[in-house]
């Protein structure tokens, strides 16, 4: 007779850089069931957004996630522009694409490095992060800060780039491309890496579609879905690029999608720099916007990101709704832990590039009875104001 034991993973765990809890039911070393508890870093951003004006909210949405910050600001400003019917200048659209893709490259190299570290391969982690610093330098050069910079603003972008910066950027991109090709070869051929990643956490194409996986997680399962290609925003309708897909459906495929996307992003930036149109970089937008509703979809480094803004003709949004990629992916990936050993958990978890600071939602659970409560908006408001 065998017993299943509850094994708690987190909230503070060296394999997770953010607090999140997984409860694995294990039989010996094999996982038989998994339960995800999110919400440790729920910061109430959607509620906070209602108390700040549209410009302040750019800085707030940027801090939903520090890694894919450009995707968040881009998605938010596009939703506001959609709501107010603002036309963005062509040059701003191309500049948005350039910074968005730089952000994607830095995010992908980052998670490839973190994946290597979690598998105990610290050398590759160090090499990848060393090469990533070149990208951080050009992000700083273009936007003014290494990580968060609020480059996108309502009606355009905040900074222009000149020819010197362009040349510098092209030079660095050549180097990054060479480095990425080297890392691709390493990750494709290294026997230990393959041993740890191939056939781990297999998410079949059908399951990926059924469980609404997005981004590299879906594309690693051979799902042809990329918002940039299928619902083009900014200047993506004018830029040719390939949607990367892998047929293997495992952790390894999901990581390789990221490597290939990095190379694809480099090509997108080169094309955008070459075809950068002239003209204004932003249009003036009044602080008070007309009543309405706006929606925007963006392909963040981790997958599809949705921002939905309501306004009642005020300087503040009436409601901001954010739907982040990890929230979709974590549910898609959770069942694939079953049947693997505890040692494989980091290898599977890291393959979706989890970002919990985006994910954490509000649920009320009565701890003593385990009962899940549903509270109306009025009750939450009363609780909020009574503090």
């Amino acid at each position, binding site marked *: 007779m065998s017993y299943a034991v509850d094994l708690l993973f987190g909230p503070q765990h060296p394999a997770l850089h*953010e607090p999140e809890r997984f409860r694995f039911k294990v039989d010996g070393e094999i996982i038989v069931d998994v339960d995800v508890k999110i919400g440790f870093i729920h*910061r109430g951003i959607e509620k906070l957004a209602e108390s700040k004006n549209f410009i302040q909210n750019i800085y707030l949405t940027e801090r939903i996630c520090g890694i894919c910050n450009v995707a968040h600001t881009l998605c938010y400003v596009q939703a506001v522009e959609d709501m107010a019917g603002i036309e963005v200048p062509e040059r701003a659209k191309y500049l948005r694409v350039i910074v968005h893709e730089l952000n994607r490259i830095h995010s992908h190299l980052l998670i490839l490095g973190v994946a290597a570290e979690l598998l105990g391969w610290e050398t590759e982690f160090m090499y990848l992060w060393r090469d990533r*610093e070149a990208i951080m330098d050009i992000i700083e050069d273009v936007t003014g800060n290494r990580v968060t910079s609020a480059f996108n603003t309502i009606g355009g972008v905040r900074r222009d780039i000149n020819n010197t910066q362009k040349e510098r950027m092209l030079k660095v991109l050549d180097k990054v491309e060479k480095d990425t090709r080297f890392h691709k070869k390493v990750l494709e051929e290294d026997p230990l890496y393959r041993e740890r990643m191939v056939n781990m956490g297999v998410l079949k194409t059908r399951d990926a579609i059924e469980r609404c996986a997005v981004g590299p997680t879906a594309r690693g399962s051979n799902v042809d879905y990329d918002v940039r290609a299928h619902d083009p925003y900014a200047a993506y309708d004018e830029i040719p690029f390939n949607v990367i897909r892998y047929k293997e459906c495992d952790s390894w495929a999901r990581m390789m999608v990221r490597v290939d996307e990095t190379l694809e992003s480099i090509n997108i930036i080169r094309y955008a720099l070459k075809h950068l149109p002239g003209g204004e970089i932003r249009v003036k937008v009044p602080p008070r916007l007309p009543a309405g509703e706006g929606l925007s979809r963006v392909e963040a480094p981790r997958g599809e990101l949705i921002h939905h803004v309501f306004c009642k003709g005020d300087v503040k949004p009436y409601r901001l709704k954010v739907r982040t990629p990890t929230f979709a992916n974590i549910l898609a990936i959770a069942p694939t832990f079953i049947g693997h050993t505890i040692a494989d958990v980091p290898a599977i978890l890291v393959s979706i590039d989890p970002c919990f600071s985006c994910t954490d939602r509000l649920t009320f659970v009565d701890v003593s009875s385990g009962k899940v409560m549903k509270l109306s908006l009025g009750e939450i408001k009363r609780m909020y104001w009574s503090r």
Partner: protein
Amino acid sequence: MSIYRLALWSRMKSPWIYHINTGSCNACDIEILAALTPRFDVERFGIKLVGSPRHADVLLVTGPVTEQMAERVKRIYEQVPQPKFVIAVGTCACSGGVFRGGYTIKGGVDTVIPVDVYVPGCPPRPEAIIKGVVLLLQKLKGEAK
């Protein structure tokens, strides 16, 4: 030389660091990791990121403290052996930052545990984080004399 001074002397040569995220947006966290990697390479000073609070001398705390994490931060702080030091990395950890006033936000880290060094910035550059650690070491040295 007393045992305490011996321990302090050895600790200054190699402070081990444990990183807690109490609700951060990940920006400070990636800058902490960047500080460990070859461009900045704090490991040459013997500074090492460890996987357990029980091995740590210094806690690096990032992010505003959320309701759910407050108890856990306290518990982790209690698990660190004495003497222990806390560095608050980033504006959110210093004061709550942009999230101040949120319904789940308690405020900066100093509302929950005592903080020795504050490193402001959103996110602070890796150099600033290293400076924070160096400031802490200077503070320790002052105590050692």
